[in-house]
Structure formats: C-alpha cells, structure tokens
C-alpha cells in the first residue's frame, strides 16, 4: 500500500460516493414501491418530497465520481516516480495490472453519470416525474459500477509495491510488440488521420442536422457517430495524435499528454472529448422516453443546448488536437 495523499483522497471520495449512492438506491426503492402519481394522498406527497432526496444524493455522488476520474488520472501519473522503470501513468498501472481494469470502469462511469444527471434534470423539470422508474432503475445499475470502481481502486492501490520493477509506455505502446496497444500504435498514420477527421466532420454534421431538424433518425445517427468518434479518437490518440504532441515518431503513449512538460494538454483534450460524446448521446437517450408529453417538452428545450454544447466541445477537441498537426514543426510525411 502506498500512503499517497491522492490515493487517500480517491479512496475516501469513492467510498463517500458509494455510500450516498446506496442511500439513494434504498430511498429510491422505498419510493417506487408505493409510487402512484395519480393519487393525492399524504403518502404520495411524502414520496414526492423524497424524490428530491434521491436526486440530491445521486447527483452529488455522481459528481464526485466524475471529479474522481480526473484525480485518478493525475494520481496514477504522479505515482510513477515511486517505481523503477515507470515514466508515466502506464508504468504505474503496469506496476499492478488491476489498475488497467479501473480505466474501463471509470470510462463507463464518466459516460453514464452525466447521462443520469441530465435525465434526472429533465424528469424533475417535467413536473409529473415521467421517467422516475427508469432513472431509479438506472441507479441500481450505477451503484454496482461505483462499487466496482471503489473495490478495483482499493485493490490496485493496496497491491502497489514500490520494489516492483515495472515497464513503461515505450514497451507497451510500441508498434513492434503484441496486443491491442501495439496494434493501435501500429495503425498506419495517414489512413487513421483521414478516418479521424472524417469521423469528426460526420459527427459535427450530424449534431448540426439534429439541431436544425430534430428527428428520430438524426438523434440515433448522432449517438452512433458519438460512440464511433470516441473509439476512433482513442485509437488516433495512440496512433498519430500523440506522435505530433511529443514530436517523436516512436512515442505512442496516451498518458504522457497529461504531464506538465506537454502543458498538461491531455486534460482539456480528454475533458472536451468526453463532453462531446456525452452531449452527442443525450438526444438519443431522450428519444427513448419521448412518449410522455411532459418529458418531450422538457427534452425539446434542453436538446438545443446539448447539441450546441456538443458542437462546441467537438470543435475545441479537434482544434486542440490539430494545432500540433497543422502548426507544429514535426511532420510524418516521410513515413
């Protein structure tokens, strides 16, 4: 176990988030059991008041989880100094491979948490709680995810041993190795670059189309493109974006971008990427519940803002990622 302040903050924060979320689930289940919106009994009034408690508990818990994803990235990056052979987060994660499992769980939470918060906002604004069952059901899925996050983080941090000699990004993300990371690093630069820009353009076009002429097809297309954009961008990060940021033709690490020597550009990059994807997914999510008129009215008002914010986040991401590609002195033309 490494008693690092960041580790304590992460474990404490995740434990607090889980406690709040479990409380939200318990109260939520109590509410659902006797929920009858058409009734005007004192019990129903009390239950309606309790929905505010569930919303507050869950929103605070999920906000803590979103912030903890950033803290996790920085802490893992900071811990590399304690391990022989580690130079960034990759080395720290290799020091105890359980750490790699935390990443997909964090990514899932990072996508699901804002979706739940947005859905909850619409539900409250609609006035008659049209999607209360769906959102409390979602909490029952989110709580195990947050629990998994806490357990995996605890297992990762407790299992770290500074005496372990670890290997870093140079060996993991190299085109010569084997495994997914090496496959990504070995992707040809120019075809990947074309795919990245094409995907970004298609995603932005879909959002613009959805903003101007909202329709079910446009909403579904936007969500599909959002997920494709996420996958293509993560592959591009390893394949070519990292090369331009580091100005090295062999350095494919997606974590070194978080370090100060690269102006910590990774934080705005990843934050804008996830924001863009979440805003892209929201219209499709709202589509599921549009059968309820009160919800559809609330969703219509919010959707415009989501799509505008999604477009802005995508432009910020593509802009930030393209600066070293377009204006940097490094070029991959010879490869």
């Amino acid at each position, binding site marked *: 176990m*490494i008693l690092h302040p960041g580790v304590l903050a992460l474990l404490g924060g995740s434990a607090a988030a889980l406690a709040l979320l479990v409380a939200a689930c318990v109260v939520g289940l109590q509410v659902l059991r006797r929920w009858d919106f058409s009734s005007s009994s004192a019990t129903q009034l009390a239950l309606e008041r309790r929905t505010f408690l569930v919303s507050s508990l869950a929103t605070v818990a999920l906000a803590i989880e979103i912030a903890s994803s950033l803290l996790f990235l920085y802490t893992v990056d900071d811990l590399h100094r304690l391990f022989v052979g580690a130079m960034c987060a990759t080395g720290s994660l290799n020091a105890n491979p359980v750490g790699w499992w935390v990443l997909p769980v964090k990514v899932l939470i990072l996508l699901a948490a804002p979706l739940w918060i947005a859905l909850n906002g619409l539900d409250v604004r609609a006035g008659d709680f049209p999607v209360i069952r769906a959102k409390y059901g979602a909490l029952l899925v989110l709580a195990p995810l947050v629990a998994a996050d806490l357990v995996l983080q605890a297992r990762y941090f407790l299992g770290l041993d500074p005496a372990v000699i670890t290997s870093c990004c140079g060996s993991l993300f190299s085109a010569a190795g084997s495994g997914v990371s090496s496959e990504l690093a070995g992707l040809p630069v120019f075809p990947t670059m074309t795919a990245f820009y094409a995907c970004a353009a298609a995603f932005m076009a879909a959002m613009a189309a959805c903003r101007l002429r909202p329709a079910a097809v446009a909403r579904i297309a936007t969500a599909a493109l959002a997920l494709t954009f996420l996958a293509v961008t993560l592959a591009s990060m390893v394949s070519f974006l990292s090369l331009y940021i580091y100005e090295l033709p062999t350095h494919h690490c997606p974590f070194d971008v978080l370090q100060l020597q690269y102006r910590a550009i990774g934080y705005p990059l990843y934050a804008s990427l996830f924001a863009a994807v979440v805003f892209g997914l929201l219209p499709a999510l709202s589509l599921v519940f549009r059968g309820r008129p009160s919800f559809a009215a609330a969703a219509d008002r919010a959707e415009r803002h989501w799509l505008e914010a999604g477009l802005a986040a995508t432009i910020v991401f593509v802009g930030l990622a393209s600066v070293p590609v377009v204006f940097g002195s490094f070029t991959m033309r010879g490869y």
Partner: protein
Amino acid sequence: MRRHLKILEFALSALWRRRFKNLAIVVVYGFTIAVLASILLMTDAMRGEAEQILIGAPDLVVQRVAAGRHDLIPVDYAEEIRGLPGVGEVSPRYWGYYFDAFTESNFTFVGIDDGPPYELELLEGRLPSAPSECAVGEGVARARSTGVGHELTLISHDGLGVIFDVVGEFQASSSILTNDLVVFRNADLVELFGIPEGRAVDLSVEVFNDGEVSTVAAKVKRIFPDTRPITRSEILRTYDAVFSWRSGMLLTVFAAALAAFCILAWDKATGISAEERREIGVLKALGWSTRDVLELKFWEGAAISLTSFLLGLIAALVHIFLLGASLLAPVIQGWSVLFPEFRFTPSITVYQLFVLGFLTVVPYVASTVAPSWKAAVTDPEEVMRG
C-alpha cells in the same frame, strides 16, 4: 441564469443574517482545511527541497558493507571502477558524524579537496585550503559561539583536543543543508576521525550517460560483492516514497479530526433554527419550489466551503512558507539537536488544491445533503401555524 444569480444573492444575504452560527462552521472548517493543507504543502515542499539538493549529488555512490553494516571502503576499488566503460571520475569521499559533548548535539563533518561538495554559498570567508582550517554552518557557529577569525576546538578519535581556524561560514539560505555542517580538508578529517590509510568512507562515481547508471551499478556489485552501489535515482525515489508516506500517515491521523468535523457539519445543518424554518416556510408560501430551496442550500454550502477553503489555504501558506512550519516541523524533522530553520520555496499546484478539495469539501458536501433536503421540504403551512 438570472434566476440562479438571484438565489445566490439571497443565499449570501441569508448567510450574513446568521453570521455567528456560520462563523463557527467557517472557523472549524477552515481550521481542518488549514491542518490538511499544511501537511500537504510541507511534505511536497520538503520533497522539492530534497530534489533540489540531490541535483548536485553523485550519479552513483559505492559503499562497502561488512556484517550488514556500512564499512570503510578500500581506496584501491576506485581504480578498478574507473576502468569500467562509461565511468568518469571516481573519487573517495570522507565524511562522518560527530557528537559534540559541549553542546550535546551532532555535527556533520565533510572533507573536501577542491570545490565544495554541493553548490553551497558562503556567507563570509572562504573554504578551507590549508591544514587546520574549517568552514562552519550557521547552527554550529551559533552553538559554539564561533565565527570567521575564531577557533573551533574538537576532540579527535584518540581523545585529544584539536584546534581549527574558522575561515568561512555558510549562508543561512542553505541552512537545511549546512546548519550542522563543518567542512575540512580531506587530510584533516582523516586524521580527526582516525580513518586508516588507504580507506575512505565511500566512493562517488561519475557516469557519463544517465541511462547507464544502473548497468554500472550492477557491474560494480559483480566485481566487488562486498559493496552496495546506490544510484541518485534510488535516493530520489526513496525520498519520494518517504515523503508521500509521511504525508499520507499524517493525513490518516487527521482523518479522525475530519470525521469529527463532518459530524459537526451534519449536526449544524440538521439543527436548523425556528427562524430559519419560518424563513423557508415563507419562501415556499411565496412560490419558491423545493428545487429552489435546495439550490439556495447548495449556494449556502458552496459559499461556506469556498470561504473556508480560501481561509484555510491562506493560513496553511502563511504557516508553512512564512512561519517555517513551526507547528508541524517537530513532528517530521527527526532526531537532530541542531535543527535547521525551514525556509521552503513557496509553491502550490492545482493537484494539491484538487486533493485538498477531495479530502475536505467532499466529506462536507456528503454530510450536508440529507439535512439540506430535510430543510428544503419544510411544509409552509405547518411552519406558519407554529
């Protein structure tokens, strides 16, 4: 947007109306933050100092180990190590600790041949260049009431008094390094400590390529199995681990204080006064929804957290960087008698703020969610009827 700002304005005026109750929370909250921030800032500052100091340390130090203990190393080893590819200068080092019976304190003695061992700045005078000369740190000069132009009497290994002329005194700015330091010429130190001929305390090895340090260390270990090569990066890593551990340890100890603070916050938030209940009742009767009151409570919490966070942080900055960590230093500074005065280079990072926020604001917010809701669902009719 305007609605949110109006609620914020109302929240601030509500806080001001109950300023004494809120002041109590801010004081305790701020104090908790100040303690945790002091720990974080100080350990990070010490880590920074250690890194700065170790920039001048040799790439590789070779010690001899006998019976599991550090032993004097034969100077002949240097020749063979120098022959390894990639190795530059290999020089024997003479240094040690000296218990001074007059002042009941420990001094650190270092021998030099030409330049100072690190980038040390002399306050006045020069470094020793002739036999029986020495330069002393500020703490030694003060403890022994000596200085440039005066003498320093020490007891040699065979119990005889030896007099040295003090020709230099180190600057206070380097006191973390030089406070208990006395610098001699190598020959004087060998004589004072009675180090046998052909032996040194350890060997400092220069390696031209940083990437080869561990290979050279492995080779040295193979040629001389009785040695222990220590690389600079190992020392840096150890310092990192030690300071992270100390910081984490202290934070864990203060977790109890944090828990106590959360209980206080919960208690204060739960026990809302009759006046406050009436106020919420009136607001709801005037058309405020539960959501609005929850937002009001959120803004109140945010204002209290931000105020306490800034006050606590400023207190910690003053404590660590202006007052030299006077309250925490005794806990972490170790066993020496001649303590240096801590003068850390002020520095603060976004990460420290983020960790601090997670350690303090998150528990506060988590423990006030339920009480805020309880206040927000106050029934206006019930309250107005009294």
